[in-house]
């Protein structure tokens, strides 16, 4: 196949691999791990009620500390992470979740970045292939003479 097509495939494959790898890695599950790890997972998804925009995991405040121990005792008693999150939502509202649930209107903030990316890549591909094959052919002989003359002029010392 032609060099250009090969190139497109190569680029596309590289990009796909990277994106896939990262998406998989960042979505790694939290089923296993020690109790500490599981507490960390749940706590980093909950918003500390007395801080500004910090997670319960990150917050240095006393209330966050106590929330962490509440999470720990509930996980230890056998609650699933979903149930623990639900416990806090019942009391503090959806606000306490640091990332919105993916239901109803809340789907919007999750969809927009993905849609934007797809749209952007599409626009890029469209703009970049407008003239196909590219209009620059090899330089004509007149152009070549001109190029050579300029190169020679440039290499003049001083």
């Amino acid at each position, binding site marked *: 196949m032609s060099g250009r097509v090969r190139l497109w495939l190569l680029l596309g494959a590289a990009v796909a691999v990277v994106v896939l790898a990262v998406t998989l890695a960042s979505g790694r599950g939290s089923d296993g791990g020690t109790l500490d790890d599981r507490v960390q997972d749940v706590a980093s998804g909950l918003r500390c*009620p007395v801080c500004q925009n910090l997670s319960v995991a990150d917050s240095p405040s006393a209330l966050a500390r106590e929330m962490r121990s509440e999470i720990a005792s509930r996980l230890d008693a056998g609650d699933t992470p979903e149930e623990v999150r639900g416990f806090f939502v019942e*009391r503090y509202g959806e606000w306490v979740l640091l990332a919105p649930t993916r239901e109803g209107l809340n789907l919007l903030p999750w969809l927009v970045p993905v849609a934007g990316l797809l749209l952007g890549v599409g626009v890029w591909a469209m703009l970049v292939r407008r003239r196909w094959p590219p209009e620059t052919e090899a330089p004509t002989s007149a152009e070549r003479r001109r*190029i050579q003359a300029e190169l020679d002029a440039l290499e003049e010392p001083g």
Partner: protein
Amino acid sequence: MRLDAPERPETREADAPRRSRWRTVVLVSVPLAAFALLLATSLGRDPRALPSELVGEPAPVFALPNLEGGGTVDMADLRGRVVVVNFWASWCQECRDEHPALDAAWDRYRERGVVVVGVLFEDTVEDGLAFADELATDWPLVDDPGSRTAIAYGVFGVPETFVISPDGIVTAKRVGPVDYTWLTTEIEDALRTPEAA
């Protein structure tokens, strides 16, 4: 000299018919105006105000130790009475501000069986007692070790006050200092609730 194509000469505008220009302008302006309108909806709202989750729900029960002189206050014992649960702390200026209102409500309604319970939040017992002595608080005061009860009630900070009807349902919640009018209105409402069996 460059090998690139020379730059095109400036095109003068005024070639395009006026109508299509206006159409483009309108097309561009509409989403921008919508965006500005969206931002406008946020004006005048308090960014820190949060809706009350527990109102209408059963109040979380607790049994907490008294601040001084042993023993506990157990919500189970208070079933059948209107309970005002007030979260407070000695370092909280607004708790100081609302104290007279709570005191007045306590005086007025204690004969009718209403009980005010003050739950200490994120504070030491000594500081709490000093505060209570200074303001001559005479309703039951309890400590909340580990803030379990505060978390159960979804407390963001102090002061927060919950009014609980005799059948154990949270009928009202106030974030921030309470005033006498609010207290009396809510207590009267709770008193009117038919008692559970």
